[in-house]
């Protein structure tokens, strides 16, 4: 399996496949289906300082080849995540990427400082792009200056490498990527969800209680590929790609445009075994392409 191994800042991955944040909880549920140690890494659900209930329901709505969600960063809060979820995950031999969220810079800084100390947290994923929280969140992700400042503040306190998760709801994704790189980001993860809406056919009103939600799934894959393709030549830090991955061809595509690793979100809901399946299929796919290691795949669309 060593042809699948890849090294990223803070992360020695046995393979490049990992569940995306918010689509895998803290792992407990999927542990009923397979051994989590097979995963390249796990991106856990966004953690905030204080526990959050999130948004009222309905929180999900289906759209053409996609879904909207407005969970609203529901999580049990930093302390609980440290003492229970991360502790529980220690039984598995898998690096954790902790998704960090907040409303103010101070929130991010506090969570980042504390959660980066957990022994199995090997990297942070700075969620500057969640479209479903009222204050903070989205604003951080759309302004390069603000995004840079937040990145720097978190870098200052984190004991592990920091990846910044970019929002696709921007005019110029390259500008944001360059700003967070300049501010010290060790890597980029992209993309988060596109902001969307669905109406309830019966009432003519927004179906989600939060009105808008984040669009994920195969529908957004073309946007994700385009953005990674755009950012890749302009940064020297690695990209973890995501957005609509549901089969091995998608993995190949994301790496081809420049992702060094690939996260799987919505597809976990469709097929709980999707991550181990992709990991199993990848070596064969590399053989078919005549490649000796996944690193040869990265960025080939540009060559």
């Amino acid at each position: 399996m060593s042809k699948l191994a890849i090294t990223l800042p803070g992360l020695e991955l046995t393979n490049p496949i990992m569940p995306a944040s918010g689509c895998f909880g803290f792992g407990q549920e999927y542990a009923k289906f397979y051994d989590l140690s097979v995963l390249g890494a796990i991106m856990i659900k966004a953690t905030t300082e204080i526990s959050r209930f999130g948004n009222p329901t309905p929180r999900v709505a289906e759209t053409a080849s996609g879904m909207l969600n407005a969970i609203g960063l529901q999580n049990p809060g930093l302390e609980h995540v440290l003492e229970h979820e991360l502790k529980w995950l220690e039984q598995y031999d898998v690096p954790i990427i902790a998704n960090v969220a907040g409303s103010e810079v101070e929130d991010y800084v506090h969570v980042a400082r504390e959660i980066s100390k957990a022994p199995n947290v090997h990297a942070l994923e700075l969620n500057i792009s969640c479209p479903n929280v009222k204050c903070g969140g989205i604003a951080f992700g759309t302004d390069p200056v603000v995004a840079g400042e937040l990145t720097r503040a978190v870098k200052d306190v984190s004991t592990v490498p920091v990846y910044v998760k970019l929002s696709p709801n921007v005019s110029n994704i390259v500008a944001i990527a360059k700003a967070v790189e300049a501010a010290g980001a060790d890597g980029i993860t992209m993309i988060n969800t596109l902001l969307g809406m669905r109406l309830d056919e019966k009432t003519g009103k927004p179906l989600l209680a939060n009105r808008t939600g984040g669009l994920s799934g195969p529908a957004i894959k073309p946007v994700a590929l385009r953005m990674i393709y755009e950012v890749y030549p302009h940064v020297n830090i690695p990209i973890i790609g995501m957005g609509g991955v549901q089969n091995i061809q998608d993995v190949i595509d994301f790496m081809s445009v420049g992702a060094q690793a690939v996260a799987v979100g919505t597809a976990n809901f469709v097929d709980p075994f999707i991550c181990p399946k992709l990991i199993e299929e990848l070596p064969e796919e590399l053989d078919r392409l005549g490649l000796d290691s996944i690193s040869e795949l990265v960025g080939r669309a540009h060559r």
Partner: protein
Amino acid sequence: MIGSGKMEVVKHKEIAHNIYEMTVIGQQVAQMKSPGQFVHIRVSDHSEPLLRRPISIASIDSETLEFTMIYRVDGRGTELLSQKRSGDTIDVLGPLGNGFPVSAAETGQHAWLIGGGIGVPPLYELAKRLTSNGVKVTMILGFQSAQDVFYEEAFKELGETFITTVDGTYGTQGFVTTKMNELPEPPNVYYSCGPKPMLHAVEKALKGTPGYLSFEQRMGCGIGACFACVCPTTEGDGAYVKVCSDGPVFQAGVIA
């Protein structure tokens, strides 16, 4: 253990207006223990529609490894499901969730099973198990209209069965609570499944009697990971449960 995989359709027919009964066969049936559990079904091989659909288990035959679902064609997912023919396979994840506690009613006791519309199906397996435990069951089943009624005969074989319809085209005109109010004495325990307003009305009408309610909520994963299906509890203060993995059946009084 939760199973996931292909199951083969062995029987499939329309049993009322837009209501289909589908029986499938496969290994997962061995794990189906509790009436009120559900399965999460993928209705297409590609991304349209994307998400699985939750459908209750209506009856289980552990010997033949078959189980039956009853569902209403409501949107594009259930419509695609309705096009499956015998011999086709469907991708079934389940059994999921926690069903009705059969043992909450003791031998010789009397239980009411109160169902509304497509909330009726899981009560069927429940009624079978209760009666085989020597529990007396009375069914109060509410539908919109005569054309929507199903399984009346099947339930009648297990106990007294009352039908209500909103438009009065069959049985008692009104809601299940209309009929409940007419019945002489309350049961020892009740079980209910249906739309949320009905569940809350039933809960209120039977305050003081132990009861178990099965809730619906829009779902993502169906296994507890995505936080799509949360319901605040009466505890308040942000306390919640997940319908898919903590439920769908909850004791009366839990869900706010």
